């Protein structure tokens, strides 16, 4: 009996220690798995949202992009983390030269307001947006030792370009301005 008690005494805390280490590792890996799915899913959803945003603008006379809140409603699990903006679309000259316009370039309002298009929408889903940092809705808890700044690595950006579907040059004025606009765009991108 004494021997048995002694054995128990020797193993006391062993299970607890292993559980702490093992479960911590499993929790960490589980979070890694969740984040992988989270990142990948958001990347896919941002691509879908970018297509929708570009299509929406192209089919509404280039008036405005859909609001970020509507993109949240249609495409994302969390609200307030997405943003949408116009960026410079690729033109024929860019294709020939293999030169993608910088994504940081703001699309000029003069061309951007023309229904002629094309329109290029960039959708960003960024969990590191200041107002929506931890805790946010994914796990509703902060991973230990993970600062807010780490969230920037889960930011995803997608873009899509769509031509101005709503402007089919159905009036002489639209046709004239469309020809001029496309000539300017094509020649401007070449030279």
């Amino acid at each position, binding site marked *: 009996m004494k021997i048995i008690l002694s054995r128990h005494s020797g193993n006391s805390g062993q299970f607890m220690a292993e559980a702490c280490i*093992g479960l911590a590792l499993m929790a960490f890996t589980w979070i890694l798995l969740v984040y992988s*799915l989270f*990142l990948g899913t958001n990347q896919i959803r941002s*691509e879908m949202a970018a*297509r929708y945003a570009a299509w929406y603008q192209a089919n509404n006379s280039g008036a405005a992009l859909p609001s970020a809140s509507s993109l949240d409603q249609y495409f994302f699990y969390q609200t307030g983390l997405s943003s949408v903006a116009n960026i410079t679309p690729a*033109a*024929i000259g860019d294709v020939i030269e293999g030169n993608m316009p910088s994504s940081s370039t703001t699309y000029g309002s003069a061309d951007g307001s023309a229904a002629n298009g*094309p329109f290029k929408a960039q959708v960003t889903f960024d969990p590191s947006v200041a107002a929506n940092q931890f805790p946010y809705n994914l796990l509703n808890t902060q991973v230990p030792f993970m600062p807010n700044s780490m969230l920037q690595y889960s930011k995803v950006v997608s873009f899509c370009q*769509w031509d101005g579907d709503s402007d089919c040059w*159905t009036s002489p004025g639209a046709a004239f301005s469309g020809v001029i606009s496309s000539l300017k765009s094509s020649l401007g991108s070449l030279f």
Partner: protein
Amino acid sequence: MNETKLVSSDKFKLAAKMETVRSDERGSLTLLAGMMVFLATMFAVIAFDTNRAIYDRILAQNAVDAAADSAALWQARFCNLEQQLNNLHYTVDTVACVAEGVATAACLAAAVLDVLQFVPFCEWAAALIPPVCFVGCDPLCPEDAAQHLFYDALMPVQQAIVDIAPFMAFGYANAAAYGSGANNVFDSASQTITETINDGINLIPGANLNLSSTFSSIDSVIGSTLGQIPIYAMPLDPTSLELGVHTNENNGSPPLYWPPEVPAIGDGVGMVACAEYGYDDFQSGVDYSADGDENRDGSDQYKPQWGWNDLYYKGNPGYMTWVAGVTNRNEILGLGNLVWLNSQTSAAQSQMYTGPATGGGSLTIPAFLAIASSQVEGTPVICQGNVDAQGYLIKVYIPTGTNNPGSSIPFPFTIYH
């Protein structure tokens, strides 16, 4: 005896120790946790790569949709442009037809007045001849010349639109695909095809062929040649880019049409009745010939007709089927190098594998080639019609040599957009 006891004692100790090891559960949870961590990590990586593959697939589809839509849009725009020019042409022709009819009538009236002035009590007719000639008959030749001048200026413009439309549609479709993230279409197509063939061969029981290096060579050759051409989307049938609009006799029943005899009569009568009032000067000034319209410089190909019955650009484009894609890329962490994850190593799948844990090649996120069809809808380009052409994405059609997608296309696939 002692040795025997010693041996027995050692065996006993060893057995006891083995029993202790067997019954000792310390570390088992850590081992289990380690295995779970390993598996979860693998799942995380595979899930991430799967998401990237899905992302690539969606990106390719978005790019080709944007390209097909853009091409149809530009065809629609050029159709509308042609229709607006046709409507202008129609208006000018109608006005010219009325004006030339009035002028011919004035020439006839001048001839009547010319005879009437010699009739007793009708001397007043002589006073009417000059204004009738100046205002009514003399403009006949300039009106016809102006009509032809307009015609000669308009038709080359319309032909230029027809000629340039396929290139513009192609260019803007490529811009849309490029701007949406598509890769070089030759690269993505060659990779997709070689990957598909390679995987297909590996599915053949007993084939045990590893042609990945051969296909990689083919793919690299294509990549170093065609892959250098900056094309990111292309139609399966390049002729589908054509606008399908061409000159056509104005068949049917034009509301205003002068038969060839009318200008001959008008011109002949005008020369007699109004020659002294400037008709011949106008006629020679514009080099007019009532029966020589088809022989005028610069107009032969369009066969202009006197009055209304000119040629018009008419027709409509057919459907287009576009392809665009993304190239393959390596998966993260190089997991594809593990033999048991590498589908290209058939030996590992069919028998006990005793080779190294990592094999040749890598499990890449495959290249994707997406397909989309588009078409211009609305009123076809006609003499005078609605300017309402629009481009639409439609069901995907595989070209089979016919331009009628509704009847004999055997493989329609639905695209949701």
